[in-house]
């Protein structure tokens, strides 16, 4: 492993600008993190916290209304924000792959599995149809689909949900990417298949040494899957650190509240602790610390001044006045 991290995001800000430029939504604001080869980063946050926009920013696949306003995304030492559209296309799917929120709907109903798993190989490596099918068979084996020789000939509707899920995984790793971004890949699955899928992802990650960014609102998954966690709130990372530290000694009140709101088996209390209030409207974030209206440990300056990012331990940082 080299010294330069695989992915280095620095001060990234992505805003949505309304047509006349009058309404600006700061979906991602001043986000920085690094990821080394083979590491797993979990990005956690409520809906509207900017985590999906962050994922799309990394691949430069933003909707037309969105703008990168500041920051840099360095992947293998190269700034992705300065790449041309064609260069980005060669990175997508080949060096950075992504699994979408609903993998069940990610397969084209009109093509065989072999064609779809082989598609990135044909696009990026100029593989022949026959060669791509050959590789597709191996890939199906790698995601532990039984009888891959028969399955390549199937159409998506002939397969179960769990299988389709694995096939989307096979498509993602087909070109041996260095980084895999999974945007809530398990929300549409039932719990047993979720667990299988997660262990498969881990296995693939270990086998290929690829780095993984896992975007989710499910802290249970983060605890199982990730080495590092970044907690997002109102477009900013409010706390980041190794997974043990985050769960053991959470520094930010929001992180603490999130952890307390996980249902635990055998909890005699009977009621879940919910976070008071609503997630903020990303177009009209409160001043100061965005979390202050809902924060149980609010100080007076929280409403006025935004807290700085401060270190509270080894690789553990938070933006909160309690630690400022």
């Amino acid at each position: 492993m080299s010294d330069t991290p695989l992915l280095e995001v620095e001060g990234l800000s992505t805003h949505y600008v309304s047509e006349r430029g009058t309404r600006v939504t700061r979906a991602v604001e001043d986000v920085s993190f690094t990821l080394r080869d083979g590491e797993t980063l979990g990005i956690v946050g409520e809906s509207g916290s900017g985590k999906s926009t962050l994922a799309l920013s990394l691949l430069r696949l933003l909707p037309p209304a969105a703008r990168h306003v500041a920051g840099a995304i360095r992947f293998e030492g190269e700034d992705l924000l300065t790449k041309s559209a064609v260069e980005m296309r060669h990175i997508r799917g080949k060096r950075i792959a992504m699994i979408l929120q609903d993998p069940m709907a990610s397969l084209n109903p009109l093509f065989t599995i072999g064609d779809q798993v082989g598609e990135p190989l044909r696009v990026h490596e100029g593989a022949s149809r026959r060669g791509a099918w050959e590789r597709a068979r191996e890939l199906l084996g790698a995601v532990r689909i039984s009888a891959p020789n028969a399955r390549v000939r199937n159409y998506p509707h002939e397969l179960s949900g769990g299988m389709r899920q694995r096939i989307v995984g096979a498509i993602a790793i087909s070109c041996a990417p260095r980084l895999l971004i999974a945007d809530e890949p398990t929300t549409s699955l039932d719990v047993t298949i979720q667990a299988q899928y997660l262990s498969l992802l881990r296995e693939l990650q270990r086998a290929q040494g690829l780095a993984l960014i896992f975007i989710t609102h499910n802290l249970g998954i983060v605890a199982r899957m990730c080495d590092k966690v970044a907690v997002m709130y109102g477009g900013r990372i409010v706390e980041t650190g190794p997974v043990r530290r985050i769960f053991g000694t959470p520094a930010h009140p929001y992180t603490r509240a999130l952890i307390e709101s996980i249902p635990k088996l055998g909890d005699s209390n009977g009621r879940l602790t919910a976070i008071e209030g609503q997630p903020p409207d990303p177009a009209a974030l409160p001043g100061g610390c965005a979390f202050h209206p809902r924060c149980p440990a609010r100080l007076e300056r929280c409403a006025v001044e935004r807290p700085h990012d401060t270190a509270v331990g080894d690789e553990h940082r938070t933006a909160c006045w309690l630690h400022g």
Partner: protein
Amino acid sequence: MNGSRAAALTVAWRLASFRREGLPMFPIVILATLALLAIFADFIAPHDPQVGMLGERFRPPAWQVGGSTAHLLGTDHVGRDVLSRLIFGARISMTVGFTAVIFAGVLGTTLGILAGYLGGWVDQIIMRVTDAWLALPALTFAIFLAAIVGPSASNIVIIMALVYWTRYARVVRGEVLSLKERDYVRLAIVAGCSKRTIMKRHILPNVVNSAVVLATLMLGVVIVTEAALSFLGVGVPPPQPAWGLMLADGKKGLMAGYWWLTVLPGLCIMLMVLSANLLGDWLRVKLDPQLRQL
């Protein structure tokens, strides 16, 4: 390469599955008969459709007084055999109908996909042109074009394609707008496919269904327009035996009691258009997943 193959496969697969569920016999029998007549017109027609015998003018059909078995459906004002003209007329209607529908379909579908998928100014331009186009009355527009390029069977095809592509563009664009939000299209983007690849492999095969349904429905419209243009004298030029032209030629004889000169071609047009529409309606129901009740 693969897109068109998959497109053909879907249609073939769908058609195969219909066999189990029963086909609409009426339109298929009518259209198949007309198609066979059109293809084998040279062998079936008893007389040359363009050469008349002046001694045999205005012969009524065989079952009427004065009719003969030599001219089963009578003769027209220059003594041409009506049955033969109807049979060759099927060839003209079928050829013009199918080629025009295909030309319009290819043009409209292509533009619809481009507009829907690329969006932005491409969409704006194509759709504003489409709107303007649709604002023109189709028949008047067709007459106008025919007056410019001059009447001939092949020009009619071009005119129809130019008049009717907008219907496809509209429908296809709408379909594409919903398709491009599908996850498998997003996955293709995330996998680094170019826009061309996505349009060809992921969009086109999925809009073929709608385009085929529309084409079947348009077949009737195109055939009527062709007949109307020929009737008005800006379509297929005489002495070719187009049904619309036969109607126009025969209309003067209507008051004189020569009913077969107008009623018979009219009946042919009606049967063909009705069959095309029935088939189109049936296809639309069959191919629409919501109406199909899977």
